[in-house]
């Protein structure tokens, strides 16, 4: 490999040709600040608009300052990253950005977690000159079922645009207008609700400021908790336990399952259950569906469409309803674990308690923002009473715990309640890319072959590669499995399905890069993809520690079918646990 030698801040470094100054500096332990640049290396995601100009440095012989995020190293270059000229320029740029930025840090939802705020602090900005002359641009706020857009706080880093277009290929957001009126917005500056947005929340996950945040449902949950007529039940998604700790100072990848359960109980939830239980249930339903379609397909039944696509991710469901409505009979009809849980809680469990579903409030803790939209879908309610009343993100839960004066670190581990709190390791790994299909394989293999699996760890299905494939031997029958995470990767597999080229029997899709562990509702990774790797490792660790690792071995699942549901994919199961999809291709609505 061709390399170049250069000097940065009087230190020599040798790097491969094409390396940017910023990356070369990092090797020397020089951390050049930036606002717009973002590199999620392990996920192959980079945002490099060279727009904020915070990362500038002086290059000997060059007239102007160089943006180090997008300037490549050259042989013999001499770079200075903290001369008076550089520091002044950086400060001036920052002051310009701040002169057009609201000064409501004290009450901003991003306060304490805001990259702009941290940068102002790091650069030692103590006043913002020129404010009296600066015209503040103002935009109306946009409230969607999942995401709030407050474009007054946008600094045009365009990370959201990269996520929405390059990574997710959703194309809901684009830079529009110019000058002071420049903003990132949907087509015709319509509200997000009328755009092609899937509510995956990846724009929120990367926004450095308070311009993109989630709808906060904590006040509604609090009101339900203090209402003596309501029985409040909570479910926690697998990916939450692997990330919640980060908000309380734990190292990324620390599992806080027991403490999370204790905190939820302390918050006043009457029953603390686990979405992992519903994940096991999903596997039984989805696995049965897979085997049914597969068997019919092998017998030559043309109506049995393959591949089967997983349907537990609501961002993904929104995506194919928008972009692939012609394929809406291909995904599994199984509801997502969140909705399966809600349906069972408000029937089976409400019956056990002897209460009316209207007196039960189901709250879900999710790593996801699309779940907020999903639980509001009309098909998931009975007589206007939703199966899941409120969905709050990992971040909202962390804030709620802090508001309630609960010191998570000192809590003793507690166990989930029965009967909807017991889960297998298969349910746990739902939270990471490849996990759903691995869980499905564990069950489908044993059901199909009648044999016990020698090895439950399918490492060939794991990893962070955007599109992965593997062939699993089902006792002589090779099953081709495809995995995609990130909607842009999913689109590639879907295009093949549409054109009839796909050779897969089953495909798992998760909308967010990394799966739910990288969800839009998780603690912010601030561009560090190591955190996402650590969270995945944590889930696989929890899986290994579980006495039961296959969904169909979960005794509470068996009991649920015996006492209540009947057969998998049976009539009752179909009524409660399955759904159907819609053609939601957006027609542009013109505002009058």
């Amino acid at each position, binding site marked *: 490999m061709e390399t170049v030698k250069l000097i940065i801040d009087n230190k020599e470094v040798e790097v491969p040709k094409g390396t940017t100054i910023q990356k070369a500096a990092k090797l020397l332990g020089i951390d050049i600040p930036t606002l717009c640049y973002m590199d999620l290396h392990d996920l192959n995601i980079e945002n490099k608009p060279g727009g904020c100009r915070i990362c500038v440095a002086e290059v000997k012989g060059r007239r102007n300052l160089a943006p180090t995020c997008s300037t490549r190293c050259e042989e013999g270059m001499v770079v200075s990253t903290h001369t008076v000229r550089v520091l002044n320029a950086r400060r001036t740029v920052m002051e310009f950005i701040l002169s057009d930025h609201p000064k409501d840090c004290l009450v901003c939802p991003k306060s304490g977690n805001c990259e702009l705020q941290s940068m102002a602090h790091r650069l030692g900005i103590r006043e913002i000159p020129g404010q009296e002359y600066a015209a503040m641009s103002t935009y109306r706020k946009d409230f969607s079922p999942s995401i709030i857009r407050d474009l007054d706080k946008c600094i045009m880093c365009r990370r959201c645009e990269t996520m929405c*277009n390059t990574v997710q290929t*959703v*194309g*809901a*957001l*684009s*830079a*529009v*207008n*110019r000058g002071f009126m420049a903003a990132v*917005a*949907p*087509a*015709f*500056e319509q509200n997000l609700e009328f*755009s*092609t947005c899937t509510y995956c929340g990846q724009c929120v996950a990367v926004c450095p400021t308070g311009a993109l945040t989630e709808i906060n449902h904590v006040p509604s949950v609090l009101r339900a908790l203090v209402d003596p007529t309501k029985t409040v039940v909570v479910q926690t998604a697998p990916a939450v336990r692997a990330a919640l700790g980060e908000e309380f100072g734990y190292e990324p990848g620390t599992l806080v399952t027991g403490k999370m359960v204790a905190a939820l109980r302390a918050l006043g939830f009457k029953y603390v259950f686990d979405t992992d239980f519903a994940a096991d249930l999903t596997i039984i339903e989805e696995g049965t569906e897979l085997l049914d379609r597969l068997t019919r397909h092998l017998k030559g039944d043309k109506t049995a469409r393959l591949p089967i696509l997983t349907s537990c991710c609501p961002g993904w469901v929104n995506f194919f309803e928008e972009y692939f409505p012609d394929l809406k009979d291909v995904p599994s009809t199984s509801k997502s674990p969140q909705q399966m849980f809600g349906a069972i809680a408000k029937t089976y469990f409400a019956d056990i308690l002897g209460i009316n579903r209207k007196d039960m409030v189901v709250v879900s803790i999710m790593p996801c923002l699309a779940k907020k939209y999903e639980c509001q879908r009309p098909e998931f309610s009975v007589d206007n009473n939703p199966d899941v009343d409120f969905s709050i993100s990992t971040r909202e839960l962390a804030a709620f715990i802090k508001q309630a004066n609960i010191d998570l670190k000192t809590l003793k581990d507690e166990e989930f309640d029965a009967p909807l709190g017991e889960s297998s390791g298969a349910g746990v790994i739902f939270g990471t890319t490849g996990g759903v299909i691995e869980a499905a394989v564990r069950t489908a293999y044993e059901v199909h072959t009648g044999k016990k699996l020698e090895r439950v760890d399918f490492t060939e299905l794991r990893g962070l590669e955007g599109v992965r494939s593997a062939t699993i031997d089902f006792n002589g029958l090779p099953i081709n499995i495809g995995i995609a995470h990130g909607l842009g990767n999913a689109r590639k597999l879907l295009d093949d399905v549409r054109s009839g080229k796909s050779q897969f029997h089953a495909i798992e899709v998760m909308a967010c890069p990394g799966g739910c562990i990288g969800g839009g509702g998780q603690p912010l990774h601030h561009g560090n993809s190591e955190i996402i790797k650590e969270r995945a490792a944590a889930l696989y660790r929890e899986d290994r520690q579980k006495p039961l690792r296959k969904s169909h071995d979960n005794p509470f699942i068996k009991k649920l079918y015996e006492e209540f549901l009947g057969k998998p994919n049976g009539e009752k199961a179909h009524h409660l646990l399955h759904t159907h999809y819609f053609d939601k291709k957006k027609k*542009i609505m*013109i*505002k*009058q």
Partner: protein
Amino acid sequence: MSSIKIELRKEDVDFIKGVCDSFKNDPQELINVLHTCQEHFGYLPAEVQEVISDNLNVPVAKVYGVVTFYSFFTMTPKGQHPISICLGTACYVRGAEKVLEEFKKELGLQVGQVTTDGKFSLSSLRCVGACGLAPVVMVGEKTYGRVAPDDVRNILKEYE
């Protein structure tokens, strides 16, 4: 932001498709496609952008982003008699701005707007290459030179 709702006729859609085809439906040709379509329709309403987006396989948000970035593109239709006031250096120093103000006052319009009867629209431009006649006003294809604010009413009268 356009507030006009239009319904494209089949031949309009076919025209846009034809334009996109002539540029091989290449997303890189978006600006050229927009250019040709604006020449044809006089402006770029949302519906036209939507059809372009479909054909070039570019998100409609991106198309809108480009339309709003370049001041040449417009989402409001031009009037029957589009009025353009030159604000280039020569015209500007000889009082073009006062002429513009007068047009604004007479028509009750801002730059980029069109009268409710669709008769006049108002825009500004940068230099038509007739600096000797500064300040210059164009109405449709017709050029008026050495325009003073007092002339504005008479110019408009010609089109009544």
